[in-house]
């Protein structure tokens, strides 16, 4: 199959090219590839050709592994090819049985699932060597786990040459906090979560990562201070934290109840943010339909992730398409040592993206409900 006149986004730039795919592999890249007799030709004029999106820290509906097929569906529709799911599922991925169960469930899906494994087991430290030998791609920790446990986890990461993914938050300082500690919290009379919950923990963990020489990714930082203090580590932030502040919680809007909380818009920190996430953790309506304090955290966002990012970052002129694709595809792949490239000989794991298509979001679980989003994911036909 030949794709003609596609605007290819590689790690450095975008350029218009033809491309031949044979047996699922990129066979040839270049201008004016002449079709063989009977070869399928796809005109991609005006379309972006990019790697499938990789999303880190995804959780399943209400955390249950039963939600795997739903997540896979949403991911597929949204152009996400690899889900690096959180280990904080029910049951958590901190034992062989849970990991195998997830691997079995996800093996039937059209997208790739790679699991994080949690450092904390039922009795202290999990069997991380076994879990990583069985395919865990990284170790997830909360920054406020016991210090000995965290130190041992760093040693495991070193042993197995995998990254640590850290949720930076002090649970004891957060206490019963449920919303960013600020004017909105005061107005709504809701207990706040101080930015220190995150920033002070970032300092500790970033120092440990430096001490052990281990690759560390902070998952979904929500504070400017945290981002500034995360030197030497990779930073991810959810797209929502770029675009919304805590005023999204006005009127006790539980759709905007996510953890870490929406605080101030982080859009002007975008240059320091390596990776964007959807922070997808769909919560059933029955768990959102409560008083703000009692509603579950979480947001349904996987399907709209790429379109939201394109609309608010590229179409609006904040960054170019290559910079976005870097934060959605190339950078996350590099953190997890996963191959991701569009070049001759590489697997044809790509999507086409039509930036002109527009659609209004109709999803009451979405923060983007009612917005017009641009872009449409087109999957490559089988060659």
């Amino acid at each position, binding site marked *: 199959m030949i794709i003609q006149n596609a605007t290819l986004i590689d790690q450095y730039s975008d350029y218009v090219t033809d491309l031949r795919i044979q047996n699922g592999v990129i066979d040839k890249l270049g201008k004016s590839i002449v079709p063989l007799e009977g070869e399928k030709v796809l005109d991609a004029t005006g379309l972006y050709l990019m790697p499938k999106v990789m999303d880190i820290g995804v959780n399943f509906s209400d955390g249950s592994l039963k939600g795997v097929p739903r997540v896979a569906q949403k991911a597929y529709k949204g152009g996400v090819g690899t889900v690096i799911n959180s280990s904080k599922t029910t049951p958590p991925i901190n034992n062989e049985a849970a990991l195998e169960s997830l691997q079995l469930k996800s093996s039937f899906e059209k997208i790739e699932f790679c699991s994080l494994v949690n450092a904390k*087991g039922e009795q202290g*430290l999990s*069997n991380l*060597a076994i879990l990583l*030998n069985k395919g865990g791609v990284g170790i997830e920790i909360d920054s406020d786990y016991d210090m000995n446990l965290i130190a041992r986890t760093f040693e*495991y990461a070193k*042993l197995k040459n995998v990254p640590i993914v850290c949720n930076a938050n002090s649970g004891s300082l957060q206490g019963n906090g449920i919303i960013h500690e600020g004017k909105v919290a005061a107005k709504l009379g809701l207990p706040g979560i101080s930015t220190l919950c995150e920033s002070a923990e970032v300092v500790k963990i970033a120092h440990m990562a430096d001490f052990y020489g281990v690759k560390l990714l902070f998952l979904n930082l929500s504070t400017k201070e945290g981002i500034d203090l995360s030197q030497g580590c990779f930073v991810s932030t959810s797209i929502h934290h770029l675009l919304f502040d805590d005023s999204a919680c006005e009127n006790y809007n539980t759709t905007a109840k996510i953890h870490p909380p929406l605080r101030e818009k982080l859009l002007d920190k975008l240059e320091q943010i390596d990776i964007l996430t959807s922070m997808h953790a769909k919560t059933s309506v029955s768990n959102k339909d409560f008083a703000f304090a009692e509603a579950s955290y979480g947001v349904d966002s996987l399907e709209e992730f790429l379109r939201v990012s394109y609309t608010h970052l590229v179409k609006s002129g904040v960054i170019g398409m290559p910079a976005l694709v870097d934060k959605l595809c190339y950078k996350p792949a590099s953190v997890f040592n996963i191959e991701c490239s569009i070049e001759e000989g590489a697997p044809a794991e790509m999507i086409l993206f039509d930036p002109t298509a527009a659609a209004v979001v109709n999803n009451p679980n979405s923060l983007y409900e009612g917005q017009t989003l641009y872009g449409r994911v087109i999957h490559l036909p089988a060659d």
Partner: protein
Amino acid sequence: MRHLLDTTDLTVSEIEGLFEDAREFLDTKQHRLLHNKLILTLFFENSTRTRSSFEVAAKRLGAEVVHLDVAQSSTKKGETLNDTAKNLAIMGPDAIIVRHQHSGTPELLANMIDTPILNAGDGAHAHPTQALLDLFTIKQHFRRLEGRKIAIVGDIKNSRVANSNIKLLRRFGLEVILVAPPHFLPHTRLRTSYSLQEVIDEVDIVMSLRTQTERHDHPIYGSLKDYASDYCITKELFGDRDILLLHPGPVHRNVDIDDAMMDDPRCKVLDQVKNGVAVRMAVLKKTVLG
């Protein structure tokens, strides 16, 4: 040598001398060299094997052996180490064999009394007779030691056996490679590796250590099973390579060494036990008779 606190108390020729004696003691016959001599064992930490090995060694030489189970006596009654030492010394033993959970205690005792002290293991510091019997076992199989490579595998950081062996074996020209996860590796200038597979093709000897994953309620490793998933010595790992396998015992089966390797002729664990008695006989003889 007055005391044997670590192998560094012995010169190379003294060690060769000990081994000459030990070779003769392998006959397991009864000797009367230490007839009318009294040996005290002072074990602050439980030990079955080392204590029995010393006891058998002393009795084969004709000595009387008296055990002081200090773990349950003096220290709990408020006696200081110095008091204990002086009380023992005044009874006139010809040597005191000491095991203590804390590093440095045998040395402290040696500074307090004139009776020869034999260190039977102190904390993570030293276990000289174990290292000597390991070297003795290695020498039974290799005529030339210079340039041979040994991988020491397991919780090296907390192992007195590893510590004493590292010191001793290098003096005899062996290259020591430490193989362990980062959790168990000490700060060292020695070559280290996280992977047995990485070194298995170049080593002549593998010394597996007994590994514990829990210490003072703080987990160091997920579990023994987790440790074993990468570091258990298996027949698959050894293949048909000509490698000597050592372990100070007691072997935790299928954690330190798998069943198949335990039954393999390359595994010298029982030889080590036998050699241990002979080497300790030689050490007692030298300590008491000079």
